């Protein structure tokens, strides 16, 4: 079986496994270079082996609104800018995080925190786009979300499930398939605890297929030339949707199939359910899952509000790491915790903190990331990065390294300009050493 996806040539290996010829050739030359002399069959064997296993995956825990670094992983209890937030010790001696994350503190040996993130985008829309795509928004090029780029590169084409799933209520300017096309748009679920809405055909499967076929027949000879592109996309979308809902893999969405103790371990709330669902989906072959929790935009009352938000996030985040590890999935699953920017060191008159992209933090676990380390540092007031600044492209280069994606891979944008998955920057080497 050979599957043609996104106008690329594929070679077929094994049972329905496909590999893009371009990636394949690159893999061969790299291996050949490394090993000096490898025979073709050796290369095939070495390259096809990892394909039979589940590939790399990524779970992005998106803190919408811009989480305060002081109230999460970069507390400053000794400075007035730190406010009332205390620091607590973790499972790693010498590493302290905000007192709102006691459970994450227990798995700190798996978590690396970058305290020296720095960017210049302080507007929600723009910064959210930047931290979702690696690019600032522009009018001429529709950059794909990183999740779309990842599913384009390493998505499992044999899976009936979408390779990119977003879970949560509202995504502000988070991008989608962009110039990669609607094939790489995320499947969006409002709530993890409910099965995807309308996933059950209202007729027998046979009649459902007959209806789809009728739709195609009618649209085939539509004289609507100006809608041709839309009709094509529509057709692909319907085929994909129909395949998904009639597949056995739909079971992955059903959280009630998860044993009670495990559900309890993740804790309560939408975000907890989202984290559990993320693990189930990755297990079932989804490549990129984004789980969002909103309201981190704490312009007022930052202390009680972050306490409440951390209460939703701490346990599921920690449990997700523990669960992935227990299942032997942590090494192949990168977990990223971040939002669009940080918050001002100064506490404003409304007892809140405003937008601050200049110095903020990101936490990573799994996917080959060495946990139990802090990367970068800000000054005591938290106003600027004084060691190891990490810019957004550096961060995205690091994601690519973890996911074993060549960040310099170029995709053709709709205006005919090749665009790299990540433009510039360097992976943060310490994360992986």
């Amino acid at each position, binding site marked *: 079986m050979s599957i043609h996806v996104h106008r690329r040539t594929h070679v077929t290996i094994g049972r329905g496994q496909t590999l893009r010829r371009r990636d394949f050739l690159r893999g061969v030359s790299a291996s050949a270079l490394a090993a000096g002399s490898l025979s073709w069959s050796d290369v095939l064997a070495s390259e096809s082996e990892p394909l039979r296993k589940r590939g790399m995956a990524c779970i992005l825990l998106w803190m919408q609104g811009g989480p305060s670094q002081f109230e999460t992983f970069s507390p400053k209890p000794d400075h007035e800018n730190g406010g009332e937030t205390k620091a607590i010790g973790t499972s790693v001696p010498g590493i302290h995080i905000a007192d709102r994350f006691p459970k994450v503190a227990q798995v700190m040996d798996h978590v690396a925190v970058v305290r020296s993130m720095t960017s210049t985008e302080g*507007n929600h829309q723009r910064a959210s786009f930047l931290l979702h795509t690696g690019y600032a928004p522009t009018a001429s090029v529709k950059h794909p979300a990183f999740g779309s780029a990842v599913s384009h590169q390493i998505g499992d084409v044999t899976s009936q499930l979408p390779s990119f799933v977003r879970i949560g209520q509202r995504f502000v300017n988070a991008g*989608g398939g962009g110039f990669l096309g*609607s094939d790489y748009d995320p499947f969006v679920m409002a709530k993890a605890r409910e099965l995807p809405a309308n996933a059950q055909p209202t007729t027998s499967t046979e009649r459902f297929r007959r209806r789809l076929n009728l739709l195609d027949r*009618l649209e085939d000879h539509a004289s609507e030339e100006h809608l041709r592109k839309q009709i094509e996309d529509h057709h692909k979308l319907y085929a994909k949707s129909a395949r998904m809902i009639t597949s056995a893999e739909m079971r992955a969405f059903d959280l009630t199939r998860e044993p009670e103790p495990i559900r309890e371990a993740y804790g309560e709330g939408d975000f907890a359910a989202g984290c559990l669902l993320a693990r189930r989906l990755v297990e079932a072959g989804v490549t990129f899952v984004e789980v969002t929790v909103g309201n981190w935009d704490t312009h007022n009352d930052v202390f009680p509000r972050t306490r409440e938000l951390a209460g939703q996030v701490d346990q599921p985040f920690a449990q997700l790491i523990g669960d992935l590890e227990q299942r032997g999935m942590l090494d192949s699953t990168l977990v990223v915790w971040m939002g669009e920017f940080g918050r001002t060191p*100064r506490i404003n*008159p409304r007892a809140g903190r405003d937008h601050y992209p200049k110095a903020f933090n990101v936490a990573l676990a799994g996917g080959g990331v060495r946990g139990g380390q802090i990367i970068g540092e800000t000054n005591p007031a938290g106003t600027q990065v004084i060691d190891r600044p990490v810019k957004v492209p550096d961060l995205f280069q690091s994601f690519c390294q973890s996911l074993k994606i060549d960040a310099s891979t170029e995709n053709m944008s709709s*205006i005919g300009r090749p665009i790299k998955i990540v433009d510039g920057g360097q992976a943060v080497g310490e994360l992986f050493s």
Partner: protein
Amino acid sequence: MLSTALSTRGLSRHLAFAIGFFMIACCASMSATVGAERSRERPAPLPRVSEKDVAEVATEIDRLLSEELFGDATEVAEATDDVNFLRRVSLDLIGELPSPESITAFTLDSSPEKRSRATHGLLENRLFGQNWARYWRDVIMYRRNDERALLASTSLVVYLTKQFNQGAPWDKIARELITAKGNILQEGSTGLIAAQWGEVPDTAAEVSRILMGIQIQCAQCHDHPTDRWKREQFHSFAAFFPRIAVRPIRNTNGMRRGFELVSRERQRRRPGQGNARKKKKKPKDNTGPEHYMPDLKEPTARGTLMEPQFFVTGQTLETDISDEQRRERLARWITSRNDPWFAKAFINRIWAELVGEGFYEPVDDLGPDRECSAPGAMDLLAEQFVAHAYDVKWLYATIVQTKAYQRDSKVRRSYEGTPFVANCPQRLRSDQLFNALTTALDIPEPPASRRGRVRRGLQGPRAEIARIFGYDPSNPRDEVIGAIDQALMLMNSPNLDRGMRSTKKTVLGRLLREIDDDESIAMELYLRCLAREPEDAELETCLDYVHEVGDRNEAFEDILWALVNSTEFLYRD
């Protein structure tokens, strides 16, 4: 002081702009002189011109577009046929499909005036106001910074519906949006400011973006990277809003919480102000809040006290005057002819919705250093819109009358393609889609429950469609694309399924009972769903299908399902 130094790029644009004005001024036999010197400082005010009627302006716009954009070799699309015109103009103006009866009547009408008569009728339909009220609700609410702002959604729609239907001029509406106060559940005019929940910089940014198409918020933290705006200009604009606040209120029974938009004339002391403030000078007693521009080098400092100054005209106020005065003055300045962006921002949005592409793209980024694809036509529309005292319905009637509007649709042009050679397919907004579904299937919209009245617009089937199919109308339209959950809803929603069965009370059930002829039923379904008759090949496929299936009811259920699930159903073209 303000620095408005121009980049060379900006300067040449600006000169082109001034020349465009000059050209129009000549056309209109006006003797306006627009000095290049003055235009370097501020945008030229819109000149006073006498009003012209709809037909005259529409003709003039088409002439200007052809002059400015179309070379001899440019292929311009044909005028669209009556049937497509009626579907397009109905969806555009009232957000509804035309009924099968009106399609027939319109096609048979031989009057050359029928398109403008139909336009006029739709503008007088009460659904016109509602359709465009919902459009502006989406414009405002998709960029809300607080979920609670949704509580103002319903009142905003009620307010705007009334204004548009009563023919309220856009400048009056804008002034009310800027100066609004009161319970956000009742005073719909509070919507624009409530959407930013009292945040000063966000409010400034949105007032500028939505009402003027100026993206000055990019200058909040640094001088604008691609435009001429300076940080000082953003923050002195924000200084019009430091005294707004959204506060919780309780009804007299103390039960239900609501929120009101109020003026905050006194500095509030909060325990949470923290140590950071102690070392600073205490604010003087009894003085209201002011806006301070943060010091980038020293974020802990309070920053610079900003005097309110309107960046377009340079008009200023002193600090320490009341919220009401600040917002009222600003509202007057923004809506005066000295601020050409105000008229143009509105025109650009409406034009883009109707013709498929704005003079400026994205629709909310006009200037000053942005390119207008047809400055002559835009200037003419702006002058005439002002001459007609910001008459909203006049603007719609004029645009709909142009050839540019009435052309056949073509695929959205490429980056290098010529603008406005054709109309352009647009995906229905969620309310248009909801209306199309309920009209085609004749499903009544359930009345809002008691609780639903408060949260109306947030729950129920319309809100469900909005959640799945809604999009921010300010985003580039080619980025609005289908998603799996949308396909699933149209394919499998039990509610829609009930409307598509051939049971006793459904449209299909009635048709099947009353009409024996299968061809007529297929015709009727096409008219209801797609507002056109099927082409021969389509009709043949339908009849073949009925034959293949054997069961007439089942076959037509499937055909109706296919029409509702078709691409064409989702677009206005």
